[in-house]
């Protein structure tokens, strides 16, 4: 059978907010996901992950959309559908970078467990004006010794591996990790080809 050709990608453009991240931007519409990958009242060890997206001139990108997708604390991806009323763990988050003064994104989540022998990590999908095809990357954690044996990290040239590792900060009230994404330059983030 002749295979059908895939639908080509196009940029998310600058005006996605009222459709894809309406609540965050204050539009009169609902959102299917936001900055919370866990329930607001969940009594589990929450962490924050915060960062900026930088373009090739070192400027922050104020109109990107970032999606997080991850396994839960035991290393399991969500198996039941996401509903309007969030439960303990959604595992899926989405934020635009246009509402915080310094164009940051900050997600509240839980550190995922080890996943099928891979070190704890979060999948990231990134969209923006000027990106005709979204990019994929991954967040690992700098306080995980299992990183050394992670099969994906070991595919990445050693000099670039640091771009996939979030750094734990010294905030005392909550555990926070910093993860910046650089589209280009000396610290260009490693992006992943998920189809090959």
């Amino acid at each position, binding site marked *: 059978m002749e295979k059908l050709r895939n*639908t080509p990608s*196009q940029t*998310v453009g*600058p005006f*996605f907010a*009222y*459709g894809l991240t309406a609540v965050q931007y204050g539009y009169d519409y609902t959102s299917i996901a936001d900055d919370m990958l866990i329930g607001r009242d969940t009594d589990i060890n929450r962490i924050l992950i915060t960062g900026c997206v930088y373009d090739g001139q070192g400027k922050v990108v104020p109109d990107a959309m970032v999606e997080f997708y991850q396994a839960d604390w035991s290393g399991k991806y*969500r198996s039941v559908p996401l509903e309007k009323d969030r439960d303990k763990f959604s595992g899926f988050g989405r934020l635009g970078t246009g509402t915080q003064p310094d164009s940051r994104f900050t997600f509240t989540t839980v550190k995922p467990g080890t996943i099928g022998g891979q070190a704890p990590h979060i999948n990231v999908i990134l969209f923006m004006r000027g990106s005709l095809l979204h990019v994929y990357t991954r967040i690992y954690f700098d306080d995980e010794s299992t990183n050394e044996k992670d099969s994906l990290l070991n595919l990445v040239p050693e000099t670039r591996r640091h771009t996939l590792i979030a750094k734990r900060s010294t905030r005392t009230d909550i555990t926070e990790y910093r993860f910046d994404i650089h589209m280009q330059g000396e610290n260009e983030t490693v992006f*992943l080809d998920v*189809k090959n």
Partner: protein
Amino acid sequence: MDKRDYDVHPPYLYEGYKSTIYRSPTQSLIPVASMLKDVTMPAFGESVIRKWDNDLTKNGRRNGEPIGERIKMSGRVTDEYNRPLRNVLVEVWQANSAGRYIHKAEIHDAPIDPNFLGAGRMLTDEEGRYTFYTIKPGAYPWGNHYNAWRPNHIHFSVIGRQFEHRLVTQMYFPGDPLFEFDPIFQSVPKHARELLIAKFKMDWTEPEFALAYEFNIVLSGSNKTPFE
């Protein structure tokens, strides 16, 4: 390896679209498909869809009906073997009939329609089909180059069950004279541009109510997924 499905996509760097110059990766992507076997995206339940979410002619009303040409959009979301993809989340957003987005940063001097938001969402059914009603969007100018105009288009965001299914794209209308001048449309390889153009469907039109267009969406998973 079958490279074909990548051949339909635009490159990261397309100089005619100036914003790509500093926002495109310069290093090769690292192939990781074999490590994503167990990653499925979450399904969305019916509760995330509200009553008028698939009717953009109704979901933004304040004191009347939105102005413009009412249309019905429908299509199937399938894999490359034409098998239906069910419960796929399809989100859409667009300009109003005057070519104006409701987005706060939009500065194009065209009227806002108080009765039109321009956003909707739906889940595909058992046949992989989605359907929504809307107002045909107008063309609008942008700052890429002197006298730059975008063809009429509707933005689509699609989340299927496979991680690799994630797609954001734009759907265009047949015969638009702006195609040849639009670098975003032109960034797609020539042979694949037709895949972004909806088909006019006379037999789907609703007499004395709305014209109809068909736009099918094909998603593929990893090339490492054995099928044969």
